[in-house]
């Protein structure tokens, strides 16, 4: 009856409903359901990964990583081990925080999800982490890296199982310290995407360099928007600033675009470009063609050619056998997320006790593909951030992982324990947010 009284409003309602229906269908088309059926699952994990746009590679590879984890768990069950039966549902938040929150809420309401996983964008992750906290759903972050999520905004229900921006920048700072002894560089610039991850990365790098006592001059910090198509003005600005070293937190297609555009100038003749968190990703290696641009210093949260352990070789081979291509680091992160959840359930003896699950995850040790010999990753009970080693290197010819003709080599390896933020650092940053200290540069929005 209401509709007859307000026909225009009614039309809008119908149109909105139609859009919602299409949107629902579209979302449904992007949705992946993996592992156990709803009836047989011991736990449901709702994951959010991009399936479209510049970061779709990360989502696609993450889904493959999840499939490998489920295959491994199935093999463990067949071998006689009592492993949990997991159901994983993945959907695309389209890099939009509000949409991600809605999908996550649907995971709880419609799918009875016990865990969240995934999320590439740190901005989206912040929103979903808040939901996880409010709804008491354990969130296991597998890709996004803003250290603010675990340091300033950390809470009982949030965990992250890949290197964060602090870890990467702590490794990068050590690399830059050692490089300075070799080359005497002084002038440092930063270029990062203009959202949480980019800004936190810059903060993390400065803090890490300060902790090491590295002396340098900041000659610029530049903030292109995420998915910026044209970096020419930023490249010009960096050249004008005469930076010796440019550190960037651009990632994925953005980083590739930046390199390609920089390579069309004389940028690499005068400047070293370092990307410590995502730069050595396999999609970057492929995009470089056969050009090992001089001065590139790269690392990533997982490498196909380091460490040369049986577990890493096995993971890379499993991925290649499954997909016919080599993985980006997102795959190993997603794999780790599912394995971590499975091990936590085993350790807690089930999924009914949230506190037992949180306790199981706090300090959980995992032997992972990215762990070098003699070390196993573990989740720091203080920050809920996984503690991992990191390798930083330069680009070398390597055709072991075609179609890429380049990989990172000349590794400098940094021990995991050295890369942990100190307790004092964590406290100072948490206090700064709470208004108790001005000692830390405030995280930018």
């Amino acid at each position, binding site marked *: 009856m209401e509709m007859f009284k307000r026909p225009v409003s009614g039309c809008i309602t119908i149109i909105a409903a139609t859009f919602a229906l299409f949107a629902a269908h579209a979302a449904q088309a992007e949705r992946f359901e993996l592992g156990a059926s709803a009836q047989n699952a011991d736990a449901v994990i709702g994951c959010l990964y991009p399936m479209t746009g510049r970061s779709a590679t990360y989502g696609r590879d993450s889904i493959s990583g999840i499939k490998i984890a489920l295959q491994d768990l199935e093999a463990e069950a067949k*071998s*006689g*081990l009592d492993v949990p039966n997991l159901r994983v549902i993945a959907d695309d938040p389209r890099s939009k925080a509000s949409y991600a929150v809605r999908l996550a809420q649907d995971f709880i309401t419609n799918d009875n999800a016990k865990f969240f996983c995934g999320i590439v964008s740190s901005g989206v992750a912040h929103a979903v982490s808040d939901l996880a906290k409010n709804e008491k759903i354990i969130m296991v972050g597998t890709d996004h890296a803003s250290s603010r999520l675990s340091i300033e905004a950390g809470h009982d229900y949030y965990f992250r199982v890949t290197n964060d921006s602090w870890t990467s920048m702590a490794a990068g700072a050590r690399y830059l310290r050692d490089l300075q002894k070799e080359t005497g560089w002084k002038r440092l610039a930063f270029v990062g995407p203009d959202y949480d991850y980019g800004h936190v990365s810059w903060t993390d790098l400065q803090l890490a360099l300060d902790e090491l006592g590295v002396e340098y001059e900041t000659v610029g910090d530049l903030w292109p928007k995420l998915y910026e198509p044209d970096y020419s003005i930023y490249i010009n600005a960096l050249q004008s600033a005469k930076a010796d070293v440019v550190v960037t937190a651009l990632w994925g297609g953005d980083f590739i675009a930046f390199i390609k555009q920089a390579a069309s100038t004389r940028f690499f003749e005068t400047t070293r470009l370092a990307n410590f968190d995502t730069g050595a990703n396999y999609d970057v290696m492929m995009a470089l063609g056969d050009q090992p641009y001089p001065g590139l210093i790269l690392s990533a949260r997982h490498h196909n050619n380091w460490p040369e*352990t*049986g577990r890493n070789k*096995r993971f890379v081979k499993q991925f290649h056998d499954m997909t016919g291509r080599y993985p980006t680091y997102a795959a190993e992160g997603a794999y780790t997320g599912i394995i971590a959840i499975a091990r936590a359930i*085993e350790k807690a003896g089930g999924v009914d006790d949230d506190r037992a699950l949180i306790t199981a995850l706090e300090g959980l*040790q995992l032997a992972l593909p990215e762990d070098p010999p003699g070390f*196993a990753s573990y989740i720091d009970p203080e920050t809920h951030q996984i503690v991992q080693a990191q390798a930083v290197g330069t680009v070398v010819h390597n055709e072991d992982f075609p179609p890429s003709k380049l990989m990172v080599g000349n590794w400098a390896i940094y021990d995991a324990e050295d890369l942990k933020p100190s307790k004092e650092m964590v406290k100072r940053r948490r206090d700064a947010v709470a208004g108790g200290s001005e000692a830390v540069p405030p995280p930018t929005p």
Partner: protein
Amino acid sequence: MKNNKSKFSKYLVSGVAALALAAGAAGSASAAENGKFRVGIVTFLSGPAAGPFGVPSANAAKVLVDELNKGNLPAPYDKVGINGLEIEAVVIDEAGGATKQVEEYRNLVQRQNVDAVIGYVSSGDCLAIAPVAEELKTFTIAYDCGTPRLFADNPDAQYMFRTGLDASVDNIGAVRYLAATRPDVTRLAGIQQNYSWGQDSWADFTAAASALLPEAEVVEEQFPKIYQGQYGAEISALSVKRPEIVHSSFWGGDMEALVLQANARGLLEDATGLLTCGEASFATYKDQAPNGMIIGARGPFGQFAPDNELNTWFEGVYQNAYDLEPVYPATKMAQAILGLKYAAENAGVADKEIPSAEQLAAAMKGATFESVSGTVEMARGNGHQAMQGITYGEYHYEDGVASIKNAVSFDGECVTPPEGVAAADWIADGFPGAKCN
């Protein structure tokens, strides 16, 4: 031969059936009455040790007794049966524990009138049987059990012998293999069944490692219950310590479960498994064990048995009968039977006469006899314990074929403590008198 296999398999898979067979024999005749040499054969016919140990052992006993009774063995064992007498085997199930085995042993001796007993995989059973063998004055050969305590606890044994090697040899040999093939190894871990076998094995292994691999450290040790079956927590605990070598003295179903589960959980991708009893499942691992896993056979048995006439013959008849290569428990059973035959035929009695237990013991004590594993010297345990070399190698499976690669052998005097010296003391003193080739 197919019929042979299926008929025998049927009665092996059921301990009850095997016992019924023995009971039937008891009612019919004693050794003296039917003119046969009656031998009690004791091994696991049920439970987790039956598959990898008991069935291959009983199969070996069956085929060897059949062939001996036909006089088909190569020299010096070409005389029919034992000393010309047809052999009658009474096979019983070792399952049930030491108390039950003592009872079964008494039944074998007192009611079924066996002339000798060959048996025992379990060290607990061996330790329980040894004093009873002395009490009942019955010639008895322990064919597989590995406890070094067998003659340490029974130094005056007269009737008890062992033709296999003890566990100290396994573990000293394992460390010598690592020192020979992986001298730079630094991170060792172990998973053992939590009873004397596992604890003693690990103690010998770690002591020998500290002497021969001084750069290596033990980064993790796990002691799950025997027959636990699930080792997920232990495998994860081992994995996160990122060892290079994971040593285990697991045997039987536990060992097979460990390999499957450790493989599925990726532990054996990072670390090399070293299984002192690993060869027992050589025929059944297929691609479920990773290539490169180090396995032992508790001596020169199974895949590590030498290429001599006796072993070639034995492998041939075993394979014809069962379509499988004999694994080490089968070789060890064959060795014990040949040891008994040697003793009986060198006891100084007339043809077709059954020697007394004392005559058998006198012939066996300190003897040197030829076997499917080469020459056996009863050179330890005051002449009651065999001394032989040991071999380790890597399991490989390619194109449907399992094989051993990188095998390395060590002489008996390289891995066996001198007479009267405890293994722990010998290791602690730096292996004085060891003769290694």
